């Protein structure tokens, strides 16, 4: 019982009377544990809108979302009696430009802000802040600094730490690695992957990077003009012919494999996830 979407439509009411349909008839179910979901699609395809439904920041215009058994729909939210706040602790959402949410005097206070809002004691929140700052690859000396004197990448890490410190059951990340250097990006992805592996929590990550999708995800969702057009195995996605139709790139490893296959007229009947695996497959074929 995790997050379930049932025939969800979402319409942005704009200044013109028509409005804009950002989600159209989305059906989807994400388990509480064990999933590493990559959410991909062009800009404006509805990825962020979908993510914001997952912790009840947005309410569907039609249809309903069930988050850990709590039914979110226009009717249930309307009265204002539904307590949405606990959901935000259970489902942690990292925004696309999380650095704008920083506001406290020190990094430590800012990371502790989320946990404290959910009733965690001061001492415990500080303890969590220490743990969180280390897990995003910064050392504890950062805790005493002002969040506004950090570089862009550091700000991003601190704000992600702010969500991690809330210890959510499901983690949703809206393009967490945009604007980071390759080394920093891989480091952060390892953090998310570890949370997924070691704590067995589900992670949903919005990304434009096909390598991330291919290497880490065990499930991929493709959004296109508000429709959920693909939901399944990343391997099958990249084996499909219509990858080009959806404006997706091939992951580097697969590109390399294809190149090798063409140049040396080989056929490798594998789907290597990393360069190491590709190398192993090559060795097997050559020996």
């Amino acid at each position, binding site marked *: 019982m995790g997050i379930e979407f049932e025939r969800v439509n979402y319409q*942005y*009411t*704009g*200044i*013109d*009377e028509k409005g804009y349909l950002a989600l159209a008839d989305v059906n989807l179910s994400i388990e509480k544990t064990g999933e590493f979901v990559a959410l991909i699609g062009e800009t404006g395809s509805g990825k962020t809108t979908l993510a*914001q439904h997952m*912790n009840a*920041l947005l309410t569907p215009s039609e249809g309903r979302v069930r988050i850990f058994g709590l039914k979110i729909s226009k009717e249930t939210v309307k*009265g*204002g*009696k539904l307590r*949405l*706040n606990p959901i*935000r*602790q259970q489902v*942690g*959402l*990292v*925004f696309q430009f*999380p650095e*704008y*949410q*920083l*506001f406290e005097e020190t990094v430590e206070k800012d990371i502790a*802000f*989320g946990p404290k*809002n*959910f009733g965690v004691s001061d001492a415990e929140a500080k303890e969590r802040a220490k743990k969180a700052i280390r897990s995003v690859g910064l050392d504890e000396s950062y805790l005493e600094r002002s969040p*506004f004197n950090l570089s862009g990448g550091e700000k991003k890490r601190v704000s992600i730490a*702010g*969500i991690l410190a*809330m210890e959510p059951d499901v983690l949703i990340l809206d393009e967490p690695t945009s604007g980071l250097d390759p080394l920093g990006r891989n480091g952060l992805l390892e953090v998310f992957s570890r949370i997924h592996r070691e704590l067995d929590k589900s992670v949903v990550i919005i990304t434009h990077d096909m390598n991330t999708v291919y290497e880490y995800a065990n499930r991929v969702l493709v959004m296109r003009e508000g429709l959920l057009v693909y939901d399944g195995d990343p391997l099958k996605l990249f084996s499909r012919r219509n990858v080009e139709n959806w404006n997706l790139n091939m992951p580097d490893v697969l590109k390399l494999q294809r190149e090798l296959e063409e140049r040396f007229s080989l056929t490798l009947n594998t789907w290597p996830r990393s360069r190491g695996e590709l190398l192993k497959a090559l060795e097997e074929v050559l020996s």
Partner: protein
Amino acid sequence: MRNIVIGRYVPGSGFLYRLDPRAKLLALIILIVAAFLIDSFLHMAVALAVVLLLLLAGRISVKRVYLGLRPIVFLLIFTFIFQVLFNRQGELLFELPLHFTLLSVPVLVLAVFFWGFTKKFIRFRLIYFIALIVGIFALLHYIDQGIMFWNPTFAVFDEGLQTAFFIMLRLIIIVTLSTILTITTKPTDLNLGLEHILKPLKIFRLNTEEIAMIIAISLRYIPTLLDEANKIMLAQASRGVDFKEGNLKEKVMQVVSLLVPMFIISFQRSDDLANAMEARSFVPGRNRTRLHVLTWRALDTACLLIVGLFFMAALSTRWL
């Protein structure tokens, strides 16, 4: 928050879009002054009809302008109530002695609490609120037992009612006219128009181009900053900020968590904008040529003449 239309340009066609911004600005000023000159029901009705006609002729959706009026409804009600309460001129229309006593005040407080608790379960909240107001008056009038603190009389006078009504209508006219201007005029055109209108102030050594630029930029950034505020509210809600609930201390924290990022974003945006302007060789105070030069056409003259006629008519109601 996305529905706020103040200062927003909405593309469209119609003669209002083709008018010179200078003509539109002048017409706006003249019409606003005219709205303050007239003071009878008939003339007010005529003025409202003219505004409505303008909306229809310009093919602007009345619904959109009504949405623009919504944020000022509170202001309208507030001024109306104050005028009715404190303007005690003319003939007495209605009188109701009120008793604030040792008994009626606690009953009043109880009634408000009762309303606060039960309003969640009532479907027609506006009607319920009106019922509360009427109920409060009834309570204060009929319960006169106990020690009296204060014994005012609620009275409505015909002139008070009339002025209150007029002020409300004038505000509606002014806001509607200004909304028409911003809906039909591109920010850049508005900027140009303002620059021309403000030119006479140059004799006081005011840098009118800069003033016009400042006004145009602030108008332009209202919707952008609202969007940003919305985003930050969502981001903080994800961190457990419940903007609907909380005691005073928590409320302060909520506001701080919104305001600090807003300040930073505004400074950052203005810095970016300044850099972008400089990168395009903008030098404050330097004479610049224009890509689009404003052209005054016969339509503009005709428009100003008609507006001038309205003004003369309004003036004549006052002194003839």
